[in-house]
C-alpha cells in the first residue's frame, strides 16, 4: 500500500521515477521476480501518469509544440536501442549513464 503511495507521489512531483521506486520495492518487499515486478510496475504507473498529467494539463504545464520532435526522436531511439542492446553489454552503458545522471543532477541543483 505504502509502495503505491510513494510511487504515485514521486511520479506526480517529479514527472518521472515511479518505476525506480516501484520496481526495487516490489522485488525486495513483495518478493516478486524482476521481470514480473517490471511488467506490473508499468501497469501501476500508467493510471497514475494519467492522473498526474491531468493536474499538469490544468495548470498549463504541457507544451505540445515540443512534444512532436521529441516523440519522433524517441521512436527512432527506442528501435535503435533495442537493436544496440543486443550488441553492447548494457552493464557498462548503465554505469556511463549513471555518471551522466549524477553530473546533470549536480548542475540542476547548483544552477
Amino acid at each position, binding site marked *: *500500500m505504502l*509502495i*503505491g*503511495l510513494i*510511487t*504515485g*507521489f514521486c*511520479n*506526480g*512531483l*517529479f*514527472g*518521472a521515477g515511479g518505476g*525506480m521506486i*516501484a520496481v526495487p520495492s516490489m522485488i525486495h518487499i513483495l518478493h*516478486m521476480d*524482476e521481470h*514480473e515486478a*517490471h*511488467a506490473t510496475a508499468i*501497469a*501501476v504507473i*500508467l*493510471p*497514475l*501518469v*494519467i*492522473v*498526474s*498529467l491531468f*493536474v*499538469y494539463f490544468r495548470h498549463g*504545464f*504541457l507544451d505540445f509544440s*515540443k*512534444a512532436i*520532435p*521529441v*516523440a519522433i*526522436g*524517441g*521512436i*527512432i*531511439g*527506442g*528501435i535503435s*536501442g*533495442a537493436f544496440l542492446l543486443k550488441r553492447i553489454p*548494457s*552493464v557498462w*552503458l548503465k*554505469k556511463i*549513464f*549513471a555518471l551522466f*545522471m549524477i553530473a*546533470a*543532477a549536480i*548542475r*540542476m*541543483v547548483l544552477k
Partner: protein
Amino acid sequence: MILLLIGFLSGIISGMGIGGGTVLIPAMVVLAGTTQHVAQGLNLAFFIPTGISAIIIHAKRKLICFKTAFNLIITGVFGAVTGSVLASYLTASLLRKVFGVFLLIMGIYELMRKDKTN
C-alpha cells in the same frame, strides 16, 4: 534538432530499464531550456504511448500481476494527486533543485547497484 536528439537518447535509455525520464527531463531543462514543469509534463505525456504498448506486450506474456497492481494503484492515485498538486505550487527553480537531488540519489543507486540480469 536538439529536441530530436533528446528524444532519441531517451528512447535508447527507456529500453534499458533505467527510465527515459532521467535523461529526458534534465536534457530538456539543461539543453533545450524549458522550465522544469514543462519538461516533467512532457515526460508524463511520453509515458502514455510507451506504457500502453509495454503493457500489451507484458500482458500477453502473462508477466503482470494484476492483483498487486490493483492494490498499488488505489493508494498510488492519492500519491499522484498529492505529488502533482505539490509540483504545481513549487516554483520552477525550487522544483528543479528538488528534482536534482532525486536524480543524484537515483544516479548513485544505479552506479552502485549490482546488475543481476547480466
